[in-house]
Each structure stands twice: as C-alpha cells, then as structure tokens.
C-alpha cells in the first residue's frame, strides 16, 4: 500500500532522517513511502495539511508537533485511533518519558506516535570563533555575556538569531527556563500565572533578553539553519537553538566538543524539554490503508528505526530501551539529563498555538526593535499570559 506522508522536514539533516523512515517502510515490501514534503516549515505546511484533512482527501500520515495542536481534529473524529496498536505493542511501557505518550492521548485514546524527543534548551557555540577572538569558550550564560563584547570586537556576531518568529519565542523560552529556574518557568508557562511574569525571576530574564538582543545585532538571516550556519562557519559565536541544530553540524562534518560546544540549559539550569515530533494518521475508509497506517505507526516506534532516525536527526529516541552507541558529546549530555529526569514539558504541550503565536509575535518584535524596553516586553508578556487559555 502506498502511504503518503506529509512533513516539513526538508533541510539537509532532516531529509536525511526522514529517509530512514522511508527506507524502513519500503523494506517491509508491502508498503511504499510516498513523500509529501513541503518546505517552509510548519507555517506553510499546516494549512495544507488541515485543508486536505478537512477537504476529505487526507494524506495517510502527517507530521505534527504533538501537544494541543491536534485536539480539535481528534474531537472531530478525523484522526485514526491507534489505541489498539499501542496496547498490543505496549507503548505505555516503552515510551520514555511517559508524558510524550500523554501528549498523544485524548480522553484515554491514543492518536499519535511520538518519534523523537527534541529539546529546545541548548546553546551552540563555535570553538573556532572564540579561538579567533583569543577567548576561552564560555561554559555558561554569564561567561558568554562577559565575553560578548570582545567577540564583537573581533568581528564576530556574538549570538546568531534568525528572523522567524518561532526562533525568537523559542530562544526566550530557553532563557526563561534556564535563568528563572524551572519553578518560575512552570508557573508562567503551565499555570499561566501573570503575577509570576512580573516577579524578580522573570525580570532578570527580560533583562538578559535585552542584552541578548544586543548580541544578536547583525545576524541578517531568516532561517534557523542559516543562523546555525553562521556558527558553523564561525562568523557567529553562539546560537540558542534546539537539538535539531546538531543535524546541521553533523552534515557540515563538524565534531561536537572539538569544533563546537553545546550548553544544555545555557549551562545554568541543565534541563531539557521533552517536546518532539509525532505522526498522526487521518482516518481513512479503506481498511487496508488503515492497517497499513497502523503498521507504519508501529514501525516508526520500533527500536531499529528509532536508532537510525534519531541518529540522523540529532534528537533523542522516545524509548528508553534502545541503546544509542557512538553518540556524540552533546547527545550524550542530553541522554544523561533525560536519564536523570531533569525534564520539563515542552511549550507545545502547555500553550495553545494561539498563545504561542502571540508570544512569538511579541518576542519577534522585542528582539528586532531596540526601542522596546525589557519592562515593556515584560508587561505585554504578562498580559498575554493573563489571557492565555
């Protein structure tokens, strides 16, 4: 059976990773992977996916950030219930951390397969850039801040940041959890406590963000991987970006530890969020297709595929029972943190897309315009949180 899979993984590392899925599916001999990649990120791809599902001509599987995005599709009965597959294969036990599966669960039924863990809480630094400037590679946010001016003087952009709104929102959120601490962060992002936003912890986050804004001056790029590329090519000192950036480093042949350094939680609060990607399967009439969809679901979470896929993608597998051999430095760090249980939920699970969008908009504006003071941004952020659903 031909299975059409829509996703927005089109950058080099991503495409490489998707290929592992496709190979695995094609290797079954009975099913074929029909690739429906749409470039331009989730914002381009989502309307297409939703239209197709609404239009009654859905693809067979599609990539989504799991979390609250798909709730309504489930309510409307448009998605395939995977509970039987999950139960038959004991997903409950093998998915680690378990809240990944919770995110796929709606009223007790399971509707998606998590395929990886992506964590946002990383800062990537170019060793060469610091070397060029005659500096030591920072080991935490404070050191980074202290050396930023010297780095700038050496003709480097201290902090690379792309222009897409989600990057701004993401970078802020990483700084928030790192600098304000897990507790304050959860109060704001999970409990929607507007008071907490105005508290001292977040005040310092906003001040730090205002500093970071200075450091980011000059990175005139749009896409995240172009920003990453600035680090790879040593034009920029650092980038705050999720672990998917590793795929780019890998593709460029860079080696963790020697060419670049990673600081989970900005080297301050070493946590990682357990966000990630998941696949959903629109409900289809043809039972044969339904069966194939279920086969694919099971395949995606199978140990071999998890290993090969996550190695390529630079993310962590969703099951605790696979062994990632020869993982690099950074992945190791991530696995260790994961094993230690220092995890926080991903923002996708906490915030509705609407709120996330508002935060992204605010952050985009904040990062780009030097005339918005940290206090203003803080106030507006607090308003958004107060109205969040």
């Amino acid at each position: 059976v031909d299975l059409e899979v829509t996703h927005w993984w089109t950058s080099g590392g991503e495409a490489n990773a998707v290929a592992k899925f496709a190979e695995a599916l094609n290797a079954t001999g009975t099913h074929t992977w029909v690739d429906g990649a749409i470039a331009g990120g989730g914002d381009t791809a989502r309307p297409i996916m939703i239209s197709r599902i609404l239009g009654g001509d859905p693809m067979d599987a599609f990539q989504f950030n799991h979390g609250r995005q798909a709730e309504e599709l489930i309510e409307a009965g448009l998605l395939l219930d995977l509970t039987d597959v999950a139960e038959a294969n004991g997903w409950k036990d093998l998915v680690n951390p378990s809240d990944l599966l919770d995110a796929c669960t709606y009223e007790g039924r399971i509707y998606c397969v998590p395929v990886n863990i992506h964590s946002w809480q990383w800062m990537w630094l170019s060793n060469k850039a610091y070397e060029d400037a005659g500096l030591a590679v920072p080991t935490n946010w404070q050191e980074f801040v202290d050396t930023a001016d010297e780095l700038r003087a050496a003709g480097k952009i201290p902090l690379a940041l792309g222009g897409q709104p989600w990057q701004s929102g993401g970078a802020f959120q990483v700084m928030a959890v790192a600098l304000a601490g897990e507790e304050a962060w959860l109060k704001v992002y999970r409990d929607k406590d507007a008071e907490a936003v105005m508290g001292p912890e977040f005040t310092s986050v906003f001040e730090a963000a205002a500093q970071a804004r200075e450091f980011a001056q000059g990175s005139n790029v749009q896409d995240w991987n172009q920003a990453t590329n600035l680090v790879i090519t040593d034009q920029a000192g650092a980038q705050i970006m999720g672990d998917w950036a590793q795929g780019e480093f890998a593709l460029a042949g860079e080696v963790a530890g020697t060419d670049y350094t990673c600081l989970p939680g900005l080297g301050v609060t070493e946590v990682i969020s357990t966000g990630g990607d998941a696949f959903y399967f629109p409900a289809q009439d043809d039972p044969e297709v339904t069966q194939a969809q279920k086969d694919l679901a099971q395949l995606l979470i199978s140990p071999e595929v998890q290993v090969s896929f996550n190695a390529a993608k630079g993310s962590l597998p969703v099951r605790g029972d696979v062994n990632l051999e020869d993982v690099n430095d950074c992945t190791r760090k991530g696995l260790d943190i994961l094993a230690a249980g220092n995890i926080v939920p991903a923002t996708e699970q906490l915030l509705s897309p609407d709120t996330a969008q508002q935060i992204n908009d605010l952050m985009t504006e904040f990062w780009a315009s030097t005339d918005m003071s940290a206090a203003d941004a803080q106030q507006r952020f607090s308003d958004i949180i107060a109205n969040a659903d």
Partner: protein
Amino acid sequence: MATTHEASAIAESRAAPARRPMRLFRNLSAKIASLPMVLVAVVIFVGCTVWTVVHSFTNSRLLPKLEWDGLSQYERLWSTPRWYVSIENLAIFGILSMIFTLAIGFVLAALLDRKIRGEDVIRTIILYPFALSFVVTGLVWQWILNPELGLQSVVRSWGWQSFTFDPLYDADIVIYGILIAALWQGTGLIMCIMLAGLRGVDEEIWKAAKIDGIPTWKTYTHVIIPMMRPVFVTSLVLIASGIVKVYDLVIAQTGGGPGGSSEVPAKYVMDSMFAAQNLGQGFAASTMMLLSVIIILIPWAYLEFGGKKRG
C-alpha cells in the same frame, strides 16, 4: 375609419399568438450561460463571505465551529499590536504603491507615446516582470537588496564604503524595500493600460493644444490626464485589488521581518488561521479587510455608476 381599425385589430389579435411569453424563459440560453457567473457571484463571493463573517463571531480554533463568542475576536484583534503594525504597513504600502504605480506607469507610457524608436522592445522590458510571480519577485529583490551580497556590497566594493542600502534589514524602511519590488513587478501592466489610454486620445486634441501653444507637459497635466479618468479608474481598481492581497511578496521577501515590521493584514489572517490555529481571529481580521475594501469601494461605485443613472 376608427371603427375599421378597431375591427381589424381585434381580428388580428384573435388570429395570432399574442400572449406574452414567460419572462423567465426569454433568452433562456443566455441565462443558462450566465449561470456559472451567477453561481460564482452568489455562492462563492457572497456565500463564502457571509460564511466567513458569521464565523468571525465564533471562537473557532482549528476547525470552524458555530460556537458564539460575540465580539471578542474583534476586541482581541483591535488590542493586538501586530494588527496595528499590519494595517499601518498596508496603508503606507497601499498609498505609496498607488501613487507611484500610477505616476510611474503614466510617465513611462507618456514617454513611450512620444513616437520613439524601439518602443516595442522597451515596452516588453517594462512589462515582463508582470509575468513573474510575487514569489519570484520577492526572491530576486531579496537577493539584490541583501546587504552582504547585493547592491550595497557592490557599491561598497566600488569604494563608497559608507554606502548603506539595506531596506530589508531595517525595520523603519523595510516596507519601502517591498515597495521597490512591487513597483518593479506591477508598473508594467499599468503602463500598458495607460499607453492604451493615451493612444485612445483623439489626435486632434494634441493638434489643438499645439496650436494654442500649450507646452507638452502642460497638455498632459491640464488636458490629457483629466481626459483619462476612466483609464485611471481601471488602473486604480487593478492596483487596489492587488494591494489588499499583498501577501506572497512579503512572505518571499521578508517573511514579515525584521521583527514583524513588514507584517501585512493578509499575513495576519494566514498566521491566525494556520499558525495560531485561531480561525475566529483570522476570520475577524479578514472581515475587517473586507470592510475596509467596501468602505473604499462604495463611494467609488457611487461616483462611477450612481451618476450615470441620474443623468
């Protein structure tokens, strides 16, 4: 004589099928042939618009739902800074692009109308960008306006080190960067329309002006331009309908950046609907766009068509 008339008239009317046929079936094929147009007008343009307006009063999220939510989407819309930035941008872009497109289009058409050599070639050169999509336009101009690779770096490499021209990376002027691309793409068509309009001007008007000793420029400003009102109206309609929809260009050129400073309403709509998964918000914003279009169109339609009926 009168009686004979009567008699014969009655005789005639009795003999012949004098009944008026059903109105509905007169020219039936014309009506059938117009059916697609009527359907599009009613079902798509009216129906979908009503659908959208209705749903703008709901709290639809990812899927359209009829759960009433009053005016809250509108309250939210008008308290969103990004919306203000969007409409401000659209206003600046709209007004400037109307003025410049009309002005440049007209001036170019006037130059081409001067019986010049190689008119065909130049006209084609000015017109060809219209064949390219906004996506392509956006890309090329993004590339040319890229400060590291494009115009700025080239001028600097010629030795003018302080030359700075990076509209796409300067929040204050980014909308002008978009305008440059939009003008490049759109002026050709307007020029063509203007040229056609100029060609339609009675040659004797020109002769009369020459004999009156009116300088050429003054003939244009005082005689020709006022005469070309319908042409300007057509052009304006074309430009305006493009402006409301400007979306692709922004996406391709800046993606709304830097820092959301080149946001436009259409993008706000798209983002609300698909990124934020808040359809109600998107519909509310679309409704506002529609409303502004109608506010602009109604007086115009009144001027254009209302006057004719009375006269």
